[in-house]
């Protein structure tokens, strides 16, 4: 599905990702773990071309991204297949919940307004936001905005959903609801890559975890294995911190 090879990303003279290789297969749910500043968000943003990189390749299906400025046609086809849920959601501030979900299907996919609205209502129902379809982002709580952001991404019928720290702004009881929602999506066969700090979240959802530190993947494996018996001392230190939090 997605294949990353020898990916290197620098900001000025700082190397943020160094020779990262990883494969995300169809139907898989992968959690990206690691200390803050380890490069998780950067890696995620490279996967749908929001960030350019300095060497290596990213391949999504038959499309691939090369270092430097990507060709726009490639970019668009990749982004249409890869949904992205931002840590801060970035809902369109001038649109209601429904308007946010309709926007891309109508203007990118060319769906009719009627069809897009029907689909959008189904998706809002799925994420439990039907009762708030007329609300503007400024009138929604963080959890509500996040659910709308997921519905907005799903409206483009992506094959992969990328999520950056989806639990970071949620109350503990809301995390449960999110896990339930994502489990349903996993059951429908959606491939997901999610950055997280929450071990329980990773454990509940992921079929595989990657630990990113200092721009390198230092550990990889099934969640139970990595979390209970980490091989790398950095992972251990990180998990120690993670469990304390």
């Amino acid at each position, binding site marked *: 599905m997605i294949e990353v090879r020898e990916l290197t990303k620098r900001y000025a003279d700082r190397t943020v990702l160094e020779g990262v290789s990883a494969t995300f297969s169809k139907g898989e749910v992968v959690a990206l773990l690691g200390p803050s500043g380890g490069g998780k968000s950067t890696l995620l943003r490279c996967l749908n071309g929001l960030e350019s990189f300095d060497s290596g390749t990213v391949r999504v299906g038959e499309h691939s991204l090369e270092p430097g400025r990507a060709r726009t046609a490639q970019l668009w086809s990749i*982004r249409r297949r890869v949904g992205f849920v*931002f840590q801060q959601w970035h809902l369109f*501030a001038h649109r209601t919940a429904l308007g946010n979900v309709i*926007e891309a299907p109508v203007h*990118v996919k060319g769906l009719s307004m009627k069809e897009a609205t029907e689909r959008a209502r189904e998706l809002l129902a799925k994420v439990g936001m039907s009762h708030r379809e007329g609300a503007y982002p*400024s009138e929604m709580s963080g959890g509500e905005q996040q659910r709308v952001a997921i519905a*907005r991404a799903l409206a483009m019928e992506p094959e992969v959903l990328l999520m950056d720290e989806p639990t970071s702004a949620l109350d503990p009881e809301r995390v449960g609801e999110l896990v339930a929602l994502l489990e349903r999506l996993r059951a429908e066969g959606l491939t997901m890559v999610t950055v997280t700090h929450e071990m329980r979240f990773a454990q509940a959802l992921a079929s595989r975890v990657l630990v990113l530190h200092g721009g390198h993947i230092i550990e990889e494996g099934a969640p139970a294995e990595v979390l209970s018996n980490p091989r790398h001392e950095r992972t251990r230190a990180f998990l120690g911190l993670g469990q304390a939090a």
Partner: protein
Amino acid sequence: MSAEPPPRTRRSSSLPSGYLALAALALLVSCGGKEGSALERVRQAGVLRWGADAQGGEPYAMEDPEHPGQYRGFEVELADALGRELGVRAEFVQNDWSSLIPTLERGGSFDIAMNGVEITPARAGRVLLSRPYYLFSLRLMARRDDSSVTGLESLRGRRVGTLSNSQAWDLLLSSGAQAIPYEGVQEPYIDLEQGRLDAVLMDDIIAQRYGMTRPGLQVVGDVGEGYYAIAVRPGEEELRRALDEALDRIARSGELRALFRRWGIDGAAQQRMVEWTEAQTREVLAETRTTRLGWSQLVLFLQAALVTLLVSVGAMALAIPLGMALALGRLYGPRWLGGMTTAYVELLRGTPVLLQLYVLYFGLASVLRLDPLSAAILGLGLNYAAYEAEVYRAGILAVPKGQLEAALALGMSGPLALRRVVIPQAFRVALPGVTNDFIALLKDSSLVSVISVVELTKRMTITAVDVRSWLVPGALCAALYLGMSYPLSRLARRLEAKLERA
């Protein structure tokens, strides 16, 4: 303003001692008496201050190119002769031609106005006029290749340039022509040559210097005549009489025509000025007219308000998309485009709109022949685009970067993301600025009168000069501006409130 004595004034600047004694006596008399007359005031001060406009003033009164600050022209010489006759020094005071009479009436910085002031019933009704000192003809000029202009009758409904509130202006209005008002004497002939006017009707002295020198133009004929006289404040009868007597002496001694000859404006007809009688003065000044504000004026005001609205809306309709393009070019374009848009914005914001209008309308006339209304809309539109660009740029920069990223992540192209997500939100930020600019534009549109568009403010000044009052036309003008801008700000506030929710 007050000049060094010009070359020809030297004579009168060294006053004979007899006059000085007389002046001293007058001073004593007036100190002892009640309020001194204007004539006494002039004699006391030892200076006759005369108002005229040196801009485009050849051959009347103009700045001496070799001696900046000094003035020459046939009226300068006449003023010196008058000063000599009155026993005082003549001093030139610069004042815009179109406001000479209002300034005089208001008790401005000069005692008399002498600058091709024509005897018209309207003027005779508001200030005192001396006996005439020059007989002029109204000369009609047209393009050499245009045989359709044959005389006054042929001008009905056609565009004819002249100075506003002049005798030619009145004549054109009464003959059904569309009179186009100009501030200067050169511009109407330029416009005639460019085909923006069908004819120009001006005093022969002006036509001779500024029109007949242009190869593409021809004289159709002289269609009227009139007189130049000196304007004196109402109530200053004594000063007027002294000037009349002085003019009489200057004319009869042959000095007047000698002076005309020196300036190439003499002719057999000027002998009438020499033999002029008091009875004739009474006759030419008998017809006075005081125009009152009436319905017809109100209609003209409403028409002018419509022109103001048309120019403003047209200019804004141009400024908004162009400003948006400039803002986008600067923010998202390649480096060279960013540099160009920055240069555009700095150039148009950093130079006066008035200058830009002049360049666009007169300066580029040979390559871009715009009619006045199009030039007005284009000029203001290009200028305001620079301001709009900055307002939109600020608006776009105020939209969080995440909004654009979210749109791109959904597969939108850059332009689509801008159109659907960034710009609508930037608009919300920019709206108060855009409203401000539009209201400023409504007022700035008064500048286009320099390229002969009669909009609201110009209409107001024409009428105010006509009816001798600035109060009522001014209030009417202000009411019409407010009537246009207030609903607009209300509308904008409602829109802002509506957008506030989102």
